[in-house]
């Protein structure tokens, strides 16, 4: 019997290594919520007007992993948002806010995918309303913040109000913080950089973010900034939110905006859907330095 034990062990070993299972896929479900607070299918909204979409998603047995929002304006398709996520329980209920563009008709398509790559979509059409509804903006002409090793200036900025706090004073305002700045060398280049609390690498310079229960994600349009598509003069002349909305290119955005040198203008969109522009008045290129910015943001 003793001589058989190794054989039995080996057979058990081979059996244990030979098993694998695969779960079947299922189809997710996506619905547009209705009600007075949401834009209705077929309604007319003037350019610049606010669109609010209520989305309810269930994964259909798999985790919800992707939500895509596309706007087809007069036949031109733009992906407004393409977000990865992992929601394995409870589904997703969210309200999305956008601004009506100039097109005669806008068809909005909302697509969802689950962890089995099964997809579902829903769409609605928004007609063009009369007149213009471009909104008012707030202007903060000078906000001075410290880079990561600057101990005299505040670091954490509320782009809506233009307020800024340092580490000692930010307690209670974490949910208001949209932006911070740091300086580093990347790919051999000196880079004053804008970031937001939700961007994972920001923890390198501001470890405090890891303890915040709310970490806002602000998306910066690096393409427009890198290519100077919005000049300082255009920033200075903006009187409503038209430039703020139309300058923002959702296909080239990140929670990190490198090379925010003096004179750059960076379009952004905050976590609550407000569009804005940051003009870099002055950016030091040293970790103990500071950055002075001007902000225009939708009211």
């Amino acid at each position, binding site marked *: 019997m003793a001589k058989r034990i190794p054989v039995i062990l080996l057979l058990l070993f*081979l059996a244990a290594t030979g098993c694998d299972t695969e779960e079947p896929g299922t189809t997710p479900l996506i619905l547009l919520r209705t009600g007075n607070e949401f834009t209705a299918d077929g309604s007319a909204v003037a350019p610049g007007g606010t669109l609010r979409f209520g989305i309810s998603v269930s994964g259909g047995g798999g985790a919800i992993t992707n939500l895509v929002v596309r706007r087809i304006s007069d036949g031109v398709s733009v992906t407004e948002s393409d977000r990865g996520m*992992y929601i394995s329980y409870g589904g997703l209920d969210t309200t999305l806010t956008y601004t009506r563009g100039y097109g005669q008709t806008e068809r909005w398509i909302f697509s969802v995918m689950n962890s089995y790559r099964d997809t579902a979509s829903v769409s609605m059409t928004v007609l063009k309303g009369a007149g213009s509804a471009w909104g008012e903006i707030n202007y903060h002409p000078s906000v001075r913040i410290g880079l990561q090793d600057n101990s005299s200036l505040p670091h954490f900025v509320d782009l809506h109000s233009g307020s800024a706090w340092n580490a000692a004073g930010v307690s209670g305002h974490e949910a208001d913080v949209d932006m911070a700045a740091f300086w580093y060398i990347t790919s051999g280049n000196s880079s004053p950089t804008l970031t937001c609390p939700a961007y*994972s690498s920001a923890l390198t310079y501001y470890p405090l973010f890891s303890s915040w229960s709310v970490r806002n*994600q602000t*998306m910066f349009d690096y393409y427009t900034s890198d290519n100077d598509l919005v000049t300082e003069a255009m920033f200075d002349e903006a009187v409503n939110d038209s430039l703020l909305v139309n300058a923002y290119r959702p296909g*080239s955005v990140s929670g990190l905006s490198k090379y925010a040198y003096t004179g750059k203008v960076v379009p952004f969109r905050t976590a609550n859907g407000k569009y804005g522009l940051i003009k870099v008045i002055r950016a030091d290129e040293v970790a103990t330095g500071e950055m002075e910015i001007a902000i225009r943001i939708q009211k």
Partner: protein
Amino acid sequence: MKPSRLILSAILLIVFSAGVSAQGIITGRVTCSRDGQPLRDVAVILDGIRGATTGTGGTFIIEQVPAGSHTLEARILGYKSQSRIVEVTGSGTVNISFALEEEFIDAGEVIITANRGASRIADVPARVTLLGPAAIASRPAATVDEMLASVPGLNVSRSFGIFSHKSSVTMRGLSGNEQARVLVMIDGVPVNKSDGGSVNWNLLDPAMVERIEVVKGPASSMYGSNAMGGTINIITRKPEEALSGKVTAGYGTYNTFFARISLGQNFTQGRNLVSPENQNPGQNLSLAKDIQPGQNHSPAENPAPGQNLLPGVDPGKSQGRGFYYLLNGLYRQSDGYITQSEFDQAANPFIVASDMQEYTASLKTGYNIRRGEFIETDFIAYNDRRGTGELVYQPHGNTTDHDTYQFRARYSVERDRLTADVSLFWLKEDYKKVNEYMKDDYTWYNVLSERVDAGILSSVRWKPGSRHTLTAGTDLKTGSVDAADVYLTSTDIVYNRGKMLSAGFYLQEAFALIPDRLNITAGLRYDLSMFRDGAFYIDTPSAETVFMRNIEDRDMDNVTWGALSPKLAINYTPSPELRLYASAGRGFRPSVLDDLCRSGRIRGGFKLANPDAGPEYLTNLEAGGDIMIAGRLRASLSAYYSTGKDFLYYVNTGDSIDMGYGLRPILVRTNIPLVEITGAEAELSYPVNSSIYLGASIGYSYSVISGYKPLDAADPIDLTGNHLTDVPSATASFSARWNNRFVNAGLVARYQGTMWANDQNIFDEVIGSNRYPAYVTIDMRLSRVFLGKISADLGVQNILDTKFYDSKGAVCPGRFITLELGYIF
């Protein structure tokens, strides 16, 4: 019946009975004359026609010995043979003892890799390193590649020990990240995958390895592509006894647990008899034993007594008729450790320990048809899952997973002056890499890749006379990759696929101009490599991959390359103490499928598929020699100069691409005009006595780009004069082995010099220098078998707890201790 016939029958019966009853028995024991320790596996031959081999206690028995005077000879490699005249009377038992005197020789070491057949190392005009059972048993290696770390001129790149999901072994100034330039074989069949040229060094349990043969320098004249820089052949064990096995379990650092099982049986007739018919010492019948303390009398570095590596014998050859099998299994798991730098840990809240879990099982079966003729099959199944240190949502986080199956069949026959060998192989690897990370949002995608390599290898050796050995053969191989990056958090699926077919024909003549003194070897091989069915394309791209849309190519051009790989070498042995050699050869390698047909993100930029990349060539001039001093100290020196033409290298195209977070440079693997490599290796080996062995080595290489032409005239970067990356400037090692009656002890100390970190040889932000720093490691192993049944094995890797880092600043495991206990049956 007539009375006369009855009388005659009675007389014959009496005479015959007398003859039968006159058979006696010879028993005895063979020991080492120096310390009296018993010697195992000594061939004790009666009258040169039959005999026995000694067992564990050094004892032997030969029955049915006719009465009279007989000659009894005891012989084993590493000891001087002894003969005795034995008088057997009647049916009695005669007891004879031998005390053999050690003989410090190494000329009898035999390898099969250099010439695709058995050759004495002393006759091979190249620098060869042979790691035999004794050397392997003394190395505290958790993986097969780690056994090679102290071989001069070799560069083992395994950043995280057993937690590394990939590793590479290169040699002689070639980049440490390019496994494709060194051919790796298991039992003579290649295991470099056509996809990336890489080798799954985790595939094989180190306990399965009997010996490793390393032949440095181009071997394309025999093996074609991949052998451009050299060859490594891993020879696995065969069963030696009627029934034997071993079960072990071990525990180590980072909560590492492992268990092994081995079971083998050999039914070969005459397995323990030595006669002219069965005397072929290449039967490999003594290779699975555990080395007993004090029993491992191995004067030379590599062959252990009983290793059956006598001159002119292919270790794969068999003797009597019979079936054999050997089963092996390994399970290993570990909680692992955090590999990432403190900088990365601060930046990423999702970092976790890089853990691992793996299984490997193998079955070797064979049938010895007759002396010199056998058929053998091998099947290996391997599965692993290794965490790469980041977990966001998936159950195991970022992982790599290999499901690998390898099958090999070999038929070999030896008749008179002719030896023929045919091998079939099939290697399938299903590779899965789970990638998940949180940046702006959550990204999750799986890399799924099916890689298949198969082929038929054949060789024929013919010795028409005492001076000539002709070797010829053909190799037919096919390799393919069918891969996809399947995104789960966006709609993208990125496909790449391709095939590489190759056919090689070779001929080599080894001519003894002056027998046993001056040999000339000339070889030529022609290879045809065909790239087919290449494709790279994307389905339903999102912002994650849409930037690759303009480089899609669903129908890449088929390309065929041909290459001649010649070799000319001379080997001169003016005296038994001195050997000199010189060689000139050229190797070649076509690009790997991954570079031909896959585009994707790489560190520092974006890699563009280049289906137009041509083969690269390496021309090597080499000279060296060995000298034996005072009968024991062997000194070896080799120097080489290589030029790499059309060298495949990552080059900046001058363009950039936005991969979703700003512009990044586009790199492409392409042929650069000229690379020069100069190097030298020196070794000392000193067997103090049969129990103590000392060895030391030093290697130096200087690899520089001599000719560079930017792909884009606007590209300001000129790499001319820059050093190749990932090549240690110098290596050194010291090894010691001491086998005494209490324990077998082995120690290896290794120094690895600085390596350039990037192509431009400029400051690297992660490393904090333009070069990886030098470091020293010391490894140790202690083992012992108690009561012939219980084995204990203590391994300590990196005793000094030296920290060394990879290109991402990730750190090695540091000191790693394992204790393994086993039961032998």
